[in-house]
């Protein structure tokens, strides 16, 4: 069918346009990491000085590692806990389920500034204090609702009969989950994990309240820097992160299937 062909090509073109829109600021960010002016001044003058000075900036590098570490742990923990909770909300019918679902929205709706302040007071009150542990506690909690909402959306397309059928064929609960349900919701779990990483990695407000001098994250360093000492070193470190993640992602896409293809 010729129309279908044309429509499919239009669709592909549209995806390219969308990616161009999404990556436009990223490309500018990367270009500015090679520009001499710290104020994004044009005309463009090529330099690699910002990468050289980034190499010397131990504080920024340490904060970057902290961020990556916290984001990775947050992603793993919140994806596992969140997927489990979504399964429970999907499988079982009980009183108060609607309330539990509604409770997912306060962490998203209340501005992070208030949540961060509340965490600071509370963690201080119960003796957790500030630091990387507190940041991790906070990040997982902020990421959980995203994971649960996303995985639940995928679960809603899942036919419960499939689980029942597997059960009637003698599979136990674990086998049902592992062989039937999980493969089906995998795209949702992956998407939830990607969001969790983004929420944690770009989280400024909560990290800011919970960080201590030696234990900060990259966004905290960046926001502190824009007051006075913002330099394109920050663009440089962001560019490196994006390029490395992109390579990792393309490799992942090359070797694993998770898009839910049958």
């Amino acid at each position, binding site marked *: 069918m010729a129309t279908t062909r044309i429509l499919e090509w239009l669709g592909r073109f549209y995806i390219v346009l969308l990616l161009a829109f999404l990556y436009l600021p990223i490309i*500018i960010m990367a270009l500015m990491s090679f520009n001499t002016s710290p104020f994004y001044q044009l005309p463009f003058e090529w330099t690699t000085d910002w990468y050289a000075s980034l190499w010397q900036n131990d504080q920024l590098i340490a904060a970057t590692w902290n961020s990556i570490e916290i984001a990775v742990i947050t992603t793993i923990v919140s994806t596992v806990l969140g997927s489990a909770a979504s399964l429970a909300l999907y*499988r079982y019918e009980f009183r108060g389920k609607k309330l539990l679902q509604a409770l997912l929205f306060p*962490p998203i709706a209340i501005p992070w500034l208030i949540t961060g302040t509340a965490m600071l*007071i509370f963690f201080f009150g119960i003796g957790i204090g500030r630091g990387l542990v507190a940041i991790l506690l906070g990040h997982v909690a902020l990421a959980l609702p995203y994971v649960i909402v996303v995985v639940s959306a995928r679960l809603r*397309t899942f036919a*419960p009969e499939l689980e029942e059928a597997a059960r009637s064929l003698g599979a136990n609960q674990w086998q049902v989950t592992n062989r039937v349900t999980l493969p089906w919701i995998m795209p949702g779990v992956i998407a939830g994990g*990607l969001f969790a990483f983004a929420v944690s990695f*770009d989280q400024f407000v909560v990290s800011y309240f919970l960080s201590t001098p030696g234990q900060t994250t990259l966004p905290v360093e960046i926001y502190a820097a824009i007051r006075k000492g913002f330099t394109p070193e920050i663009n440089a470190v962001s560019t490196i992160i*994006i390029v490395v993640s992109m390579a990792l992602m393309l490799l992942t896409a090359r070797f694993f299937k998770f898009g839910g293809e049958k």
Partner: protein
Amino acid sequence: MAEQLATGSRRGLKPALPLLLPAYLWLTVAIFLPLSAMVFFSFMTDLPLAGKEWAFTLGNYAAFFSQGIYSTLLFASLRLGLEVTLWCVVIGYPAAYVLAKVLKGRSREAIFLLVILPFWSNGLVRIFSWAMVLREGGILDTALNAVLPFKINIDLMYSYPAVIIGLVHSYVPYMVLTCYLTLQAIDDSLIEAGRSLGASRVQVLWRVIIPLSMPGLIAGAALIFVPVVGSFMEPRILGGRTGTFYGTIIEDQFVAVFNWPLGAALSFILLAVVLVILALAAPVLQRAG
């Protein structure tokens, strides 16, 4: 493929607990308990710090209703949230469809990942980049003037459209991915069946595809609408002098003055309004689907 059922097949809280408990326990310690402290503060005249006198009051909530500026701004923020959500649907849904139904194999997996990747960079650095694009003499201005035969002045920076562009950019991946999740689950044979029965493309889209992907649309819309209503960073930097929204005045109560009780009360009003809107909108959307 079977009918899409939203409800669970089994009854009882007890068997659900082992799966539910870890997540909700974590949320309780890190979010619900701290926020209850804030709820408590929101009914106080002053913070019980530094030996200050305090008493219980409803005054912080009353302030919202007695001063027109708060409701004006809340309305502006809700409108912003709605507009951004609609743009995300318009831009994101077709992309999700192409991703789910047109692209196949590795390229689909790769694009699935690439859509979210820009958001592994810092939000503030991204906003700075938008400033370069949108300002007078910026990239958009220069590029358009290089192509067009006549001279135009593009200066979108520090305006409402700039806020919309920045926010849509930040949130559209949520819509793409959540819609993808439900669109991909639709069996192709269902679409083909509709077509072979003589339904037009539009009819299939309207009667089959959109209803079946509704859970993804709703999830995406909620994940976009809710945080945008409370946002203040993007509006402030991209909106300039027009960038004052409800989130700004909440922030001010914490940052500029030490009035946490009022700031907390304002944010719980925001939460209540958002929850009511979600509760009203979800069934309507479900039925429409």
